[in-house]
């Protein structure tokens, strides 16, 4: 795979199941080497099905995809050799220890015996599991399991990493630890990361580019900033100390952009020039001697993007149950997990 060709390229990819709607419906996407691509959508959108196809565990119904320069259908073995994957379930054996998991993975991936122990020590330290390495995984917390899962995906030093909802169900501290590691992998080691998530914040914080998928189709794609800018500009909400100063407040702020009265003297004004106009707003209010109780900047969110594109909010949109791919033995997915 050359540095100029995409790390992942998908053309008109489709996956249909015998019973049920099309899980993935003619999607196109392209991921550059070293990029973190966030695949954002509610439960049942088709995220995991896409990941299963790109990781060669599910054949597409039609369309084409290459991962690491290899065709996912015709060159499955080469694809698997060049990727690491932490799928939706942590998929660990509760009876084995963390170290035994890494050893097993390393053996199956063909690492030389001398390299296995070194690699195990290195990975376990990197994910902060050195002390727990010789304890059975059944006693691990959710965060520890996810970290081990990540370590296992990295055993054979892949250039591409697929992470299917890696922080679902984790506490904020564990989530933050996973984010830090993912960012480091991409930015320091140049690993391409394809990350699926239903969390806006995760896509916003981590991803270089985001693809929003709903009902099997990509409805929007771009950097988080680009996507949000498509929807609208930021706005600022101002609440004066004296309620009857509302009229004067509105007069002062009308010059910036579209105004909305919120009641009790509070006003929200659009900032078409962007959040850099906030300083000017503050200066105007200060010059006018208007005392302000609350001043809050509102940015459009990816949820607003989703709402604009689909007519529904992303958070709370996952009412559907994701179709269980035939023969896979995966549990049905429910909203909110």
């Amino acid at each position, binding site marked *: 795979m050359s540095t100029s060709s995409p790390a992942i390229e998908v053309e008109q990819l489709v996956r249909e199941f015998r019973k049920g709607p099309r899980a993935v419906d003619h999607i196109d996407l392209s991921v550059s080497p070293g990029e973190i691509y966030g695949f954002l959508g509610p439960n049942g959108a088709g995220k995991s099905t896409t990941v299963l196809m790109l990781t060669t565990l*599910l054949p597409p119904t039609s369309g084409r995809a290459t991962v690491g320069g290899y065709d996912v259908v015709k060159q499955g073995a080469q*694809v698997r050799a060049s990727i690491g994957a932490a799928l939706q379930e942590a*998929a660990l054996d509760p009876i*084995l220890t963390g170290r035994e998991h890494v050893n097993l993975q390393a*053996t199956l991936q*063909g690492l030389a015996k001398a*390299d296995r122990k070194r690699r195990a020590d290195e990975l376990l330290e990197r994910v902060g599991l050195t002390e727990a390495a010789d304890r059975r995984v059944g006693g691990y917390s959710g965060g520890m399991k996810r970290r081990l899962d990540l370590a296992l995906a990295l055993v054979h*030093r892949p250039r591409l990493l697929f992470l299917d909802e890696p922080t679902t169900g984790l506490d904020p501290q564990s989530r933050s630890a996973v984010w830090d590691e993912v960012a480091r992998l991409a930015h320091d080691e140049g690993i391409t990361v394809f990350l699926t998530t239903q969390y806006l914040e995760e896509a916003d914080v981590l991803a270089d580019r985001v693809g929003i998928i709903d009902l099997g189709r990509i409805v929007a794609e771009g950097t988080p900033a680009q996507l949000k800018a498509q929807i609208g500009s930021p706005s600022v909400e101002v609440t004066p100390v004296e309620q009857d100063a509302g009229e004067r407040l509105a007069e002062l702020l009308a010059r910036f952009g579209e105004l909305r009265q919120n009641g009790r003297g509070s006003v929200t004004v659009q900032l078409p020039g962007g959040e850099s106009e906030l300083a000017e707003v503050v200066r105007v209010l200060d010059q006018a001697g208007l005392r302000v109780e609350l001043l809050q900047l509102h940015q459009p969110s990816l949820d607003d993007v989703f709402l604009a594109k689909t007519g529904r909010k992303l958070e709370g949109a996952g009412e559907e149950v994701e179709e269980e791919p035939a023969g896979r033995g*995966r549990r049905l997915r429910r909203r909110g997990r």
Partner: protein
Amino acid sequence: MVADVSLFQQVSAVAHRSVTRTLRQRGLLVFPVLFPLILFAINGSALSAATHIHGFPVSNYRDFALALPFIQGALFVSISAGTDLARDVETGFFNRLALTPLRGSALLVGQLGGAFVVASIQSIVYLLVGIATGVGIRAGVGGAVVLLALSTLISFGFACLGCLIALRFGSGEAVQGIFPLLFVLVFLSSSSLPRNLIKTDWFREVATYNPVSYLIEGVRSLIITGWDGEALALGFGFAAALAVIALALAERAMRTRLVRT
């Protein structure tokens, strides 16, 4: 550096995991050993009056009854091997393995490694308990060795059956669901009386066509008869047939389940 992994290495890695898991779950070792022995103790004594039936081959019912624990143990091996594999499918661990260069055949054979260990331990315990309670092995020390080999082959065959169900249906419940069927097969056999002494015609017919009868009789022949070529041939034959057929079907089910492009 990542190198091609040989089939032997893959089988070893999976077998190591299977054996480790088995040995760490003592409950899975103790119950399948204990339960058949409890039944052996009870039936060995409760049915001792059966030796008064004209034509009964031995004077001590325990000699007759010792063959049954080996078959019952095989059923437990079948369930635990199948349940283990089904759990891997259900939890997604199967997908993790599918993403490595692991061959499907290596996964299956390696998984059966744990079953082999359990089967061997069980068989040895049953034999030792039988001898300790006064059962004599007519075929001698050599016969005892052959008995262990036959018993292990039977367990292996049933383990393949358990794995087949696990791979075909991908659920532990499906594996547990075959237990009653196997249990019925064991009862509708010559497990309690020799086939020629079963009075009820239809029951005798069923026992005659039931392959489990020949598995039991193969094991039993070494204990109460000595070297009975026909019984051994049928016992080994049916055990091998079960193993080969179940393994072949399990292999096919593995290929379907381990769908990778």
